[in-house]
């Protein structure tokens, strides 16, 4: 798995399969009518997938270890950012407030540690 040619073959194979996944239903439903159940289900894709991406990045300090306590600074930070996102609907504000909250809690935890 070290040859240059094998590596390029690997890159092209992964890229091609990724592209096929991306094109799959766009191409399929351009030709065929969409079943009503699928059409109703699509509305939930953003809510479900975005949550599935966010939650592991917050609650896992290391892969597989759930850390929901206040010693995980990402938990309070994401709560602050969620409030800002909900109240002000500002993407920049959400990211800024979340990072500031994270840094503040990290600093506070370090300062409080005996």
């Amino acid at each position, binding site marked *: 798995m070290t040859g240059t040619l094998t590596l390029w073959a690997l890159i092209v194979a992964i890229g091609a399969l990724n592209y096929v996944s*991306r094109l799959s239903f766009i191409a399929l439903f351009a030709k065929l009518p969409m079943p009503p159940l699928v059409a109703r289900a699509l509305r939930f894709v953003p809510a479900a997938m*975005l949550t599935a991406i966010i939650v592991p990045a917050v609650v896992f300090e290391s892969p597989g270890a759930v850390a929901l306590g206040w010693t995980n600074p990402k938990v309070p930070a994401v709560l602050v950012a969620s409030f800002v996102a909900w109240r002000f609907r500002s993407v920049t504000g959400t990211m800024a407030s979340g990072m500031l909250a994270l840094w503040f809690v990290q600093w506070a935890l370090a300062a409080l540690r005996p």
Partner: protein
Amino acid sequence: MTPPLIGILPFGVVCGVAAQSIGLSAVEAVGMAMIVFSGAAQILAMQLIAAGAPFGVIVLTCLVVGLRLMMYSAAMAPHLKPLPARWRNLLAFVLTDQAFAAAIQRFRSAAHPGEGASYFLGTGAVLWIAWLVSNVAGYLAGNVIPAAWSLNFIVPLCFLALLVPALEDRPTRIAALASGVAVVVLEPLPMRLSLVCAGLVGVAAGLAAARAARVRAGRAR
């Protein structure tokens, strides 16, 4: 399109650093970023290359991690249907987590599909270029940003900002809740199957909640 951009940069830097650390040449690192254009697939592929995994295992793992892209593809399908085939084929290439999250909102609020499509294409093209630049920056400069800054955290924050407007009613909130619980419970699954499985659990929960709401409305009438 600024927010998804800010979200993608630290991720690209991480990928570039990983490519440099496992000994890819600069051309290979850039080629991978250009062709694969997916942080999750690139990081996984590089971890597996470094671990000496066989060709088939690496390809299969990246395919499984990319299954969520099929869900995005389905959600985008009705919006892209009115476009010519070559536009659909081009837009499919820039269908990433970030571009999907940003563009799906725009398609819903757009007056006509062309407006959403041009936003999608613009966002996708900028993200692709930013992806290459940040991968190269990470490859050349290494991790110049101290790890203590936890700049990676901006990635979930960016998605959070895009998630909140998607929680528009009770069924969408139930979909998110179910998916969030499922992704933690299913985390031991191999090949990050937890991600796409949690997505499907969330969608199913949303459908069930919407059905229950319709039944209740029917009874009230």
